[in-house]
């Protein structure tokens, strides 16, 4: 939890830095690279943001980017290259920025003061850092003792200042890099010149970089991801293997017979892997009695806050969930602007619609509430409308439940679904509509319902939604039924349930002891009709149910069957808010 929190807590400052860079460069589509950021102090970070923006405005940044990428692929250290480029181009760029924005002079002074103060605490062998400090001290007219390498590099960098042409400038950077930061370690003490030639041939022609394209995800990283997930699955599978008394029917009907004495064991495992329940046993039993009927006759429900928030001892699972959380947050960050825009749009639109609907109309009429200052009309004028009738347009308040399918089939969309849910929850919370976010999946005969946020939870709890991860089966009908139980208890007049699913309810069939009349497993037509039944039952009880389809095109029919005309198929996350707005507006206005 700590790692993710650190990125997130510092996020507001990071956002300030990005904004400052955008202000100076004027280009909101650019992002700062980590090699351009400074962590020495706040003032230095702010100043680095200004120069980063300036570089993008006054230097041909597209060429520079292409150059960096091509060199990165050839094995250069990206941070060193960026550091050299920043230092080489700074003087060129700084004066231009200050001419345009006089206030930058003060920002720079504060940064320099901090760096100067930091210098005497600095004990670094890092050549780049030493040169950075040296250049700044020179600009501040303070002379210090430098070792010969640092001094030489400093002189070379300062010489670059005069190169206005970008390609010329980059050539200079290349030469400096080759001279001071060797690419490969010489293995057998061979001549430095030889290794340089080797490096030259690997690099290819300098102008090659102009033609190369941007690269995608680092393949290494996704390999690690996959192996961790496999491991997690294996462990889960292992636990199923431990149920030595379980007779698995290998046939297609996927029916499981479980002995009574294993019930306790199963419950312990479920609590161990998914987190402890937040409801006392009696409540759970009551809920089960009411909800686990018919198709779900022998099922059970487990309501939990998840391993990270419910005192679990399962360290491995905690690490796994944290890893998923980090992954989700990374995707979120990558699409941060789009998401923020969606949240804003949704929030504005909802608040407008809600405010409109709450207006009370006072209509002059001849019955209703008396208006004293119109009384003179009696007997004097033909207009007898001395009353007002108050027409209350008030629709009543709203409450929303968001239910996310957390089964394994959603895994490929995991981050996207988490983001969609987050957008909805943020907008609703900001507008002041109480909302709850739940995830459901099935493990053996348990349908586990994980609570990410509760109705009255504060805005910050919406971050919990990024804990969303997919594994197991899904018994949609039961999950919907269980959710509605709580939703019906709320006193708001308008209840809305939004289900994010892929139209594929799929669970094993559970029987106990001697029961022999087991039918098919919970999937295909059986499951779809059961889920559809639950949706309509919920609607009959006054809950408005909307399905948000996150699955494959081929399952669209199933989704339509289940949710009727109230469902949204969203292919592009940019359109997410618009579609949901349309639906919610319809509901609120009617």
């Amino acid at each position, binding site marked *: 939890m700590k790692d993710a929190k650190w990125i997130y807590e510092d996020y507001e400052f990071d956002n300030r830095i990005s*904004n400052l860079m955008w202000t*100076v460069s004027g280009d909101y589509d650019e992002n700062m690279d980590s090699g351009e950021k400074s962590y020495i102090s706040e003032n230095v970070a702010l100043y680095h943001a200004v120069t980063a923006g300036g570089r993008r405005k006054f230097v041909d940044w597209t060429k520079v980017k292409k150059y960096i990428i091509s060199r990165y692929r050839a094995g250069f250290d990206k941070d060193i290259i960026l550091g050299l480029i920043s230092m080489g181009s700074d003087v060129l760029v700084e004066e231009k920025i200050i001419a345009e924005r006089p206030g930058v002079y003060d920002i720079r002074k504060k940064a320099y003061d901090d760096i100067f103060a930091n210098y005497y605490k600095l004990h670094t062998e890092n050549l780049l850092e030493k040169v950075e400090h040296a250049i700044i001290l020179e600009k501040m007219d303070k002379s210090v003792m430098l070792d010969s390498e640092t001094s030489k590099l400093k002189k070379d960098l300062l010489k670059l200042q005069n190169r206005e042409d970008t390609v010329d400038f980059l050539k200079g950077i290349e030469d400096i890099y080759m001279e001071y930061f060797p690419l490969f370690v010489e293995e057998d003490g061979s001549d430095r010149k030889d290794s340089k030639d080797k490096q030259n041939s690997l690099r290819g022609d300098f102008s090659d970089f102009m033609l190369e394209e941007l690269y995608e995800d680092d393949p290494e990283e996704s390999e690690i991801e996959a192996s961790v997930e496999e491991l997690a699955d294996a462990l889960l599978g292992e636990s199923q293997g431990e149920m030595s008394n379980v007779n698995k029917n290998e046939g297609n009907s996927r029916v499981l017979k479980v002995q009574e004495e294993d019930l306790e064991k199963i419950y312990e495992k479920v609590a161990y892997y998914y987190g402890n329940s937040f409801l006392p046993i009696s409540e759970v039993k009551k809920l089960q009695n009411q909800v686990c009927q018919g198709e779900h006759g022998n099922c059970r429900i487990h309501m939990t806050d998840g391993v990270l928030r419910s005192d679990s001892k399962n360290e491995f699972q905690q690490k796994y969930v944290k890893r998923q959380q980090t992954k989700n947050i990374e995707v979120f960050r990558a699409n941060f602007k789009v998401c923020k825009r969606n949240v804003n749009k949704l929030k504005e639109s909802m608040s407008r619609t809600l405010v409109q609907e709450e207006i009370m109309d006072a209509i002059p009429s001849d019955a209703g509430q008396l208006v004293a200052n119109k009384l003179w009309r009696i007997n004097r004028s*033909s207009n007898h409308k001395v009353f007002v009738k108050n027409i209350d347009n008030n629709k009543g308040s709203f409450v929303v439940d968001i239910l996310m399918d957390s089964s394994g089939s959603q895994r490929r969309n995991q981050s996207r679904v988490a983001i969609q849910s987050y957008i909805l929850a943020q907008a609703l919370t900001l507008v002041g509509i109480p909302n709850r976010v739940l995830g459901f999946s099935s493990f053996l005969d348990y349908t586990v319902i994980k609570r990410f946020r509760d109705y009255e939870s504060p805005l910050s709890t919406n971050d919990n939604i990024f804990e969303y991860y997919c594994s197991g089966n899904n018994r949609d009908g039961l999950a919907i039924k269980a959710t509605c139980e709580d939703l019906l208890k709320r006193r708001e007049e308008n209840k809305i349930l939004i289900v994010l699913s892929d139209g594929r309810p799929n669970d094993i069939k559970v029987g106990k002891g001697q029961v022999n009349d087991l039918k098919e497993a919970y999937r295909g037509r059986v499951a779809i009709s059961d889920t559809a039944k639950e949706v309509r039952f919920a609607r009959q009880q006054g809950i408005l149910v909307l399905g948000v389809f996150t699955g494959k095109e081929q399952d669209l029919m199933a989704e339509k069957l289940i949710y009727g005309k109230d469902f949204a198929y969203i292919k592009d996350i940019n359109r997410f808010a618009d579609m949901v707005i349309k639906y919610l507006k319809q509901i609120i206005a009617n």
Partner: protein
Amino acid sequence: MRLTEELLKQGINEKLLADVKHFREFYKLDEKLQDRVPNTENVFYGKDIWAMCITAILEGENVLLSGPKATGKNVLADNICELFNRPQWNTSFHVNTDSTSLIGTDTFIDNEVKLRRGSVYECAINGGFGVFDEINMAKNDALVVLHSALDYRKVIDVPGYEKIKLHEATRFIGTMNYEYAGTKELNEALVSRFMTIDIPQIEEETLMVILKGYFPDANEEILPQFAGIFLDLQEKSKNSEISTKSVDLRGIIGSLKTIRRGLKPMLAVDMGVVGKTFDQYEKEIVLDVIKTRIRESWEPSDVFGNL
């Protein structure tokens, strides 16, 4: 006439202005109503928008000015009234505005029942220009009485009153902000009766003209920095990084006025720009922008040399 000269300078077609002159001379104005004609200090800057307004009004159409806040909609409405030399009746639509405040209602004065005329009634009989402020905040029943006045019929026919035929020179100018909470979608039939003019967000050139107009004695190199603050924030808001609260031309103009009065620039801008938003993080971002433009050490005399 000063206004005509300003418009000629902006590049408005001479023939249009000649037609306006003809309009002014054709429709006489009662002496008593002369003080209802606005006397504006500032002139709206925007050649195309002016052309649109003038031609629409000359052809007998009504005009709806729509746009974000502080873009000059009311200034333009006042300018139009002055240009055409017609008296103005201003109605600010809000939740309590209903048909009686527009057309009129019975009142009891001096032991007698008299008709208190509403703004629309006055415009109709005197050939005035009616300005409807924030027309999209109006209730539907308030506006329905206007439908017959706004289209080809040009008549107000409300039961209980005599039928009023509109004076030939009567026009109606609506203004509205859109997309803020509390604003409604305008009734389509109503919009159909107006020529809608989108007043765009302010651009750099226009901004400098406006600021120079207000502060002709400001330092030539520093005044653009204030314009820059507005433009930077406008861009940021367009990219959804901040809300529209700090993007306020009135704020910038107000700050400059207080600097002219002797307030330190940093403090003035704090009042006029940063203070408009109440979100802590937004304040920081806005302040960062300002700090790149305004130096802490600046004094009022740096901005207005002859203080």
